[in-house]
């Protein structure tokens, strides 16, 4: 199997900010909904943020940005700072793999991540009595004190790999679809292999309407955004709009 570089193109003109991707992500990854969590302390590997063109009244326009780990390819900031080597870039898939089992919870990576896409487990996961029966097999629960982030639904990649091995063939793209991609009701989130020139996602990523957040930092994120609205594209760099939401700390 030749090395893949899994990435996404998220069409912001299609994103309605419904939040289906957030709930599907939490469900797939066995993330609890703890009553004591807040916007600062919650665990949302997929988080949709609302942005606006800063105008009021009938001139106001809003858009929604689904934010998750960008799976940076070059000088990956979190990988560089981790004292435990609890995160590394997978050569075979391009996924930035977070290992909660190795993490000691120093949270240096949370500081390093330019996209605030990493979340700290403040509490041990727990569910109301009986709800553990609804946990997704193939994804282990993490304890408190470690950092988590999007791993591109690795359990689904595992299933796809097993299926491919049993059938003695390569992975079928239809077998590996991350939860957020599957959940989006408008098909705004597209997932594919950026190493494959024929992949529709690769072609979309090269469109003039496609952009990446904070591209000037040079981390080469593999999640692209796309919009025909110029004001949305302008938000890709800081100083374009005031921070209007609580940042995870």
């Amino acid at each position: 199997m030749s090395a893949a570089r899994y990435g996404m193109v998220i069409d912001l003109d299609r994103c309605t900010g419904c939040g289906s991707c957030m709930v599907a992500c939490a469900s797939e990854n066995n993330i609890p909904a703890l009553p004591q969590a807040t916007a600062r302390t919650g665990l949302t590997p997929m988080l949709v943020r609302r942005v606006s063109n800063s105008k009021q009244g009938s001139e106001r326009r809003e858009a929604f940005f689904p934010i998750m780990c960008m799976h940076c390819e070059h000088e990956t900031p979190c990988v560089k700072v981790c004292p435990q080597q609890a995160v590394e870039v997978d050569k075979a898939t391009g996924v930035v793999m977070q290992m909660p089992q190795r993490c000691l919870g120093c949270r240096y990576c949370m500081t390093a991540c330019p996209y605030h896409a990493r979340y700290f487990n403040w509490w041990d996961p727990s569910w109301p009595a009986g709800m553990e029966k609804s946990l997704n097999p193939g994804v282990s629960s993490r304890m408190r004190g470690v950092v988590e982030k999007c791993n591109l639904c690795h359990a689904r990649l595992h299933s796809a790999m097993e299926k491919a091995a049993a059938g003695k063939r390569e992975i079928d793209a239809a077998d590996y679809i991350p939860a957020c991609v599957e959940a989006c009701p408008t098909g705004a989130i597209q997932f594919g292999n950026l190493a494959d020139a024929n992949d529709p996602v690769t072609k979309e990523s090269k469109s003039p309407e496609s952009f990446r957040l904070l591209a000037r930092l040079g981390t080469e994120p593999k999640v692209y955004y796309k919009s025909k609205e110029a004001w949305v594209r302008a938000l890709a760099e800081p100083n374009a709009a005031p921070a209007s939401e609580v940042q995870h700390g």
Partner: protein
Amino acid sequence: MKFSRRDLLMWGAGAAAGLMVTPVPWKILDDTSKWSQNWPWIPQAARVPVEFKQSACTLCPNGCGLRVRMAAGWPVGVAGANTHPISRGALCPLAFGAHQLNWHPKRLRAVSRRGIASSWNEAQGAFAKARGEGPIVVIDGYPGRAASSLLESFAAKQGGSYRVVNGPEVQALEPYEQWTGVPASSLGYDLENTQTILSFGAPLLDGWGMPGRFTRLWAERAAGITDPQLRLIQVDSSLSRTASRAWQWISIREGSESALASGLARAFVEQKLVPAHGPIPAMTLAEAAGQTGLQAQEIADLARTLIERTPAVVIARENNPAVAALNIVLGSVGTRGGIVRRSQSKQGHVSAEDAIQSARAVLIDASVPWDFTPKVDAEVFRFAAWDGGPTKADWLLPAPGFLEELTDVPSAPTASVETYGIAQKLAKPSAEVQSAAQFLARLDSSLDSLEKIIQTRCQQLFRKGAGTLHAREQSPVAQLASAEELEEQLRNGAVWVGEPSRADGLRAELKLWPDAGPSTRSADWASDWAAPVLPPLASKLYIESALRQVPERRNA
């Protein structure tokens, strides 16, 4: 010789030195690290195989197709079913966490009477007694199911009445009942063939109708396209999600929808944009402008825009006759791309909001919204799967939760074609539960069972020979071998779709322009969700993020 302290220290030093060259400290370190990585109080999913089953969501009357991940006999994940011809694999955000609802802390697990624990036997006894003493009113929040048929039969046999609670989408079609003689539950919008939609506050991209139907249509034909095939014009007093994605957002003062509708009707007639037929509103364009906060010219421009690309259809958020009347002016009732007749059924149902003369007892099905209170003084038997908070009901009866009972799925309220499906039971109820239909069937054994009613419906479908079965492949019903095969496929997640509605045969007559309707209340995003509680993971949307507002109806 005495064993001195020095001896002890020497002995200890020897022991310590020796310990270093035994496996003890190194093995304990390694084993402790494993022990500390696997705290027993952190639940882990069992290592069990996963299989996929299809069913349908019953948490609102749309019945989106579900593809459920099952592990060891329990649902562990929910996704949309790509084979469903209308929802096309999409769901609302709440559905993705619905498989955890059955263990929600507010799950009703035991019969109670005014807060005191009781039993099913006592409830049956009390209801049987009530039945003998006076008329029973049965209230249904999800009409059209096999269970609904059972509820209705019971009420009829007993000399009581059967009432329905309709959601706002059906309520928005109620004005047409009077004008066409066709019940609102038989009407739908032919969105697939329309080119311009004027929505008065209807959250088309955020939970209106079957979530996938319009979102997929819009994504294909309008999203990100400068000159789209499908123009969505959203009228909203604030920038809702639908308004922010719409082709055009018309910002009006809150509560002035009727004024805008009247102004538009005026503009149509004055500018001769439509063939003049029917009544004209009394309101002038200037008056409409004053009330809505728009300029008269803007209203006139909007009228012109509406007929630029036809067919055009107007969709109201709820029952607003002035907005509904616009469709008559546009000629969009009974035409392609407009309001169409989905079903030939002439059977309408009486609304539960209508006055109830008298009742000895009221039986409320679990599908009725929690905050519905019958306007009659009677003993109330309330079925529900979750506790929605303080209630005036006398009896609280635990009903089956999510995917805990076999039920069928009638056509979605705003659809333009008839559909039928079966939602198979996928989870074992975690409490002793009964649905209202089962409860009544136990009292009156002459009523057909749910399974029998579903079987009869499948037989009728098969006999008619019309329509197509949508599963991995599509097969015309005429080519199926038997009614049993049809039912088997439906139970496994296939969906029957009827023939597309013929645009003719629906005629609307409007004598007088309607009075101003009620002001559209801004809809809470979770207000149409049937269960009184939200799935726990939905809290990620409003507690652990700033994406959505805390819904009013949320209960814990």
